């Protein structure tokens, strides 16, 4: 049994804590909490940016040869993408004309809300959920998708406070998305984070053909997340003949350690 010589400080501490919990529970403290958070948000955002800058420079120590090979590889991809982009622009123009002719309404009715990442939350798994400076007061709710500056989906909102929200990243365990492969058959599946590093897409039927470098996008079957947002690229396919389903390992296109500004997709 732990004996405490002078009990008075403990009783005062327990009384103060009890009072704080009670006032929080009956929501009397909420205006104070919101005021304190809004007061500290700019500082938190600045500190987080410094932290990610350190993280980025720490990971940037690569030898010149590997950087050069990456540059060469990317230059090749840029050339291919330029050609593909040009074809897409032509198809887009044609699409617009056809829609005008048929008087089709534009189906993308979502808007974006910019948010800054102000902190990471420690959790039991190594997922490090992000905290952004937007919340219920800005019209956010649980389940909304979050995209990076390049338009790739990076996570979704899992919890909301008045002026803060928590995002689980696509690489976080238990952060699932309804996804499809951008191939001819539009193979459907569910993505889930794997150890905070990569994404796994499971429940892919054995008969479906998927290959490394296939793009994975959101299928739109999730309630609040629109179709067509890029989740990542397939790096490995696990296909065993005695299994009912096959699985794919997906790598996100964005480095999540450098996320400082994100956008919430509001349908």
């Amino acid at each position: 049994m732990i004996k405490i010589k002078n009990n008075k400080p403990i009783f005062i501490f327990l009384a103060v804590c009890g009072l704080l919990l009670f006032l929080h529970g009956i929501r009397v403290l909420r205006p104070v909490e919101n005021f304190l958070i809004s007061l500290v948000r700019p500082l938190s955002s600045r500190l987080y940016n410094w932290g990610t800058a350190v993280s980025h420079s720490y990971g940037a120590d690569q030898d010149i040869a590997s950087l050069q090979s990456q540059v060469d590889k990317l230059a090749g991809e840029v050339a291919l993408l330029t050609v593909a982009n040009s074809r897409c622009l032509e198809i887009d123009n044609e699409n617009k004309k056809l829609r005008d002719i048929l008087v089709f309404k534009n189906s993308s009715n979502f808007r974006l809300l910019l948010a800054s990442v102000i902190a990471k939350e420690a959790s039991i798994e190594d997922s490090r959920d992000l905290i952004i400076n937007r919340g219920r007061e800005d019209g956010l709710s649980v389940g909304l998708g979050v995209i990076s500056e390049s338009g790739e989906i990076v996570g979704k909102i899992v919890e909301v406070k008045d002026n803060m929200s928590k995002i689980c990243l696509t690489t976080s365990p238990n952060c699932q998305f309804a996804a499809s492969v951008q191939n001819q058959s539009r193979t459907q599946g569910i993505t889930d984070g794997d150890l905070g590093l990569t994404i796994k897409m499971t429940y892919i039927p054995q008969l479906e053909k998927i290959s490394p470098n296939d793009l994975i996008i959101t299928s739109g079957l999730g309630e609040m997340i629109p179709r067509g947002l890029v989740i990542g690229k397939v790096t490995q396919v696990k296909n065993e003949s005695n299994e009912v389903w096959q699985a794919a390992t997906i790598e996100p296109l964005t480095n999540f350690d450098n996320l400082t500004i994100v956008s919430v997709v509001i349908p």
Partner: protein
Amino acid sequence: MLKRIWPFIFIFLFFSCAVWLQVSLIFAWPSFFNQINLVLIVLIFTLFFFDFYSALQAIIVSGFWLDLYSFNFFGFYLIIFFLTILLADWILRSWLTNRSLYSFLLLIILSTLSYNLIINTFWYFYSGNLVGFFLWQVDFWRAVLWQIAWGALAALLMFNLVGFVARRFQPFFLKKQ
């Protein structure tokens, strides 16, 4: 009047800064560096260098701020830190009777271990994910080891720094009489 309030103002500002640095700056650093548990280190330092009462005041400030940032139930960090400091205080008064660097190092190590055990136990039951107990996971022990390493380094630095300023601590090597 100001003389009586001043220590609390100092504790409020100091520990608020520690929490902001922990949550926004340190957690954004890459793996290994983001295992610095700054709030726990300064709490133990307050307990060791000052007294239990000051540590309790510090818990209220740091626990409150961490609960604001956290999406666990309000009071989560208040309870965790209270239990950790309670245990640390008992260790300090029962076993570590002198205020030497050895005592400080041992206190930091034991407190870091107990903090991680307490907080992960809470998370294990609170999250509802009762598969894979944290004690059997390598990641847990690796994180604890890194936190202990950083805590020990911080203890060495702080002890020597304060040793220049105050005479509250015994020298590292006890002199023969």
